[in-house]
């Protein structure tokens, strides 16, 4: 069963939405729109799909979230007052307690009957869990969320703005999650553009194209695939061989006239 994000083009790429109960990792460097995507998923859940949600943040203060969300026309305070969404601002060491039988997060999930959760960002857990235990604890957290039938999004910081390496935690988090969405900044003809791709979904097909996206006044809007370019994920794409050949052919044809 699919859980639509409410971002129609992304749902199209996902062939209907996220798989219910799955954990999706949204990876990107600073300013790529990870928080916006996470909030949009929760706001759409609460307003369009009758699915309440919980947003857990470590660094962003709720006041900042309310203000930034208002820029997209999302009234988070109103949704909180209606019991449809909750913003929890905490420390990674508190989130680690989430898997214990008595913890401060479970009562909130029960209170609003949350079906969706966003943890922004999972990278902060690295500071609270010894590296030798990180993979095991992430595995425990993922299974805890699955047992609660929450459809989850983890955001994760990619330290490289450009480049062709994908390193999130270094402990294999990408193997533990069910779906990975990559957000990248790419340079195209001296302009910075944003690119999105669904990198992996476990057990189902998906659109594998790299698409340009923008953060508009209504949130994330995904556009057409980057055509005639290759190496987009490296951040510095070049024209495809066919494009270079076509251009050389046209140049030669013009000279020959």
């Amino acid at each position: 069963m699919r859980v639509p994000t409410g971002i129609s083009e992304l749902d199209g790429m996902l062939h209907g939405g996220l798989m219910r109960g799955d954990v999706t990792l949204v990876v990107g460097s600073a300013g790529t729109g990870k928080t916006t995507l996470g909030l949009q998923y929760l706001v759409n859940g609460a307003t369009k799909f009758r699915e309440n949600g919980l947003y857990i943040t470590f660094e962003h203060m709720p006041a900042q979230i309310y203000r930034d969300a208002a820029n997209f026309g999302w009234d988070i305070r109103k949704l909180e007052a209606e019991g449809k969404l909750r913003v929890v601002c905490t420390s990674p060491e508190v989130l680690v307690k989430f898997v214990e039988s008595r913890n401060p997060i479970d009562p909130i999930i029960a209170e609003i009957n949350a079906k969706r959760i966003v943890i922004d960002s999972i990278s902060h857990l690295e500071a609270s869990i010894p590296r030798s235990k990180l993979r095991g604890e992430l595995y425990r957290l993922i299974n805890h969320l699955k047992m609660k039938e929450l459809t989850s999004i983890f955001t994760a910081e990619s330290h490289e703005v450009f480049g062709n390496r994908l390193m999130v935690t270094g402990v294999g988090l990408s193997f533990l999650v069910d779906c990975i969405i990559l957000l990248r900044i790419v340079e195209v003809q001296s302009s910075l553009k944003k690119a999105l791709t669904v990198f992996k979904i476990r057990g189902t097909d998906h659109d594998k194209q790299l698409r340009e996206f923008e953060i508009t006044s209504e949130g994330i809007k995904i556009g057409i695939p980057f055509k005639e370019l290759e190496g987009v994920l490296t951040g510095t794409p070049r024209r495809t061989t066919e494009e270079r050949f076509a251009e050389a052919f046209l140049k030669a044809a013009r000279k020959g006239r």
Partner: protein
Amino acid sequence: MKETSLHELTEKLIGTEIKAELLRLFHTNPGILDTVEGVARRVGRMRKDIETEILTLVELGVLRKERFGDLDIVSLNTSKDREILKKVAELIKGGVKG
């Protein structure tokens, strides 16, 4: 609380700079659910400097402090907070006493 004057109540609530900062933090960010150390980081203070003030606000009922395993988690007690704000408003309406 019934016998408390406006002066006494405001003194308890915002008698020090740190208490005022904490109240402002929790009022503008009601979703904070954090350790004392985490709260200290959020107001740009050291843990030792806010511990007593947190305790005063917990005693007043504005904040809630609950133990989970080895962590004390602090959060805004929204219902009690509303009650106290109402009381302050009533006292201001009724004229400053004390």
